[in-house]
């Protein structure tokens, strides 16, 4: 567990909690990134622009942090391309089918005491762990 970073994890998590709090308090929206992303193209026209702006904010947040603290997060290199492509596809498909991702179900849904979101979160954590076990320890596709 030498890479365990509980303090930056808690602090970063608190910022995410503040973000979803402000979005709900002012705009009445749930800060679930998969739903926000999907709506950029698939929501009614009048309901699209704020989503695009939120996503632009995400990119800006990543950019600003990187400028302030270079080398804090170094982009990964040489990861198998098909795991990214297929993985991304399954993420898009699965989050639409279940109506949320780590932020929508895992944070907002659980904060709202939704049993559906709790079950969804436990489910995707379980299949994620099984998948990583297979990829890293059975097939040894990636370190």
């Amino acid at each position: 567990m030498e890479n365990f970073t509980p303090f930056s994890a808690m602090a970063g998590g608190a910022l995410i909690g503040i973000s979803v709090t402000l979005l709900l308090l002012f705009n009445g929206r749930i800060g679930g990134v998969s739903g926000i992303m999907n709506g950029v193209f698939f929501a009614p026209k009048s309901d699209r622009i704020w989503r695009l702006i939120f996503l632009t904010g995400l990119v800006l947040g990543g950019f600003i942090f990187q400028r302030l603290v270079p080398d804090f997060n170094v982009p990964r290199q040489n990861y198998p391309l098909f795991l990214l492509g297929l993985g991304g596809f399954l993420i898009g498909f699965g989050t639409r089918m279940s109506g949320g991702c780590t932020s929508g179900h895992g944070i907002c849904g659980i904060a709202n005491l939704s049993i559906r979101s709790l079950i969804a979160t436990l489910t995707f954590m379980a299949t994620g762990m099984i998948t990583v076990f297979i990829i890293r320890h059975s097939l040894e596709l990636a370190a």
Partner: protein
Amino acid sequence: MKQNLIALLCGIIFGIGLSLSHMINPNKVLNFLDITGNWDPSLIFVMMGALAVAFFSFKWILKRPAPIFAESFHISRKSSLDKSLLLGAAIFGIGWGMSGYCPGPAVTGLGLLSMESVIMVVAIYLGFFTYNRFFDEK
């Protein structure tokens, strides 16, 4: 206009939170999912940090008749468990475990000019499109 400013601010705070917590580092996420390997429980602390805020704030906010800049809250009222919830979450988890990304970090990584993020975002939209076009029964 006011709602768009809030959306921008929330996006920026969220992106900084994902960066500070290292959740935009896909190997950090894979190390969390790798319970039989060199396990890194940091992701649970990210969720605890977020829930410590949101658990109380949501309870307080939802007592209001309406949000400050909008007419109503857009919140799912569904409560029953169904096959699509479980199957969809299972499929998402497989993609998460294959890549180390979930949607937030995939988008945020674009700010670091990460090539992986570009691939992830395009692939995620292909998944959205496929589900919406061919599988959504609503």
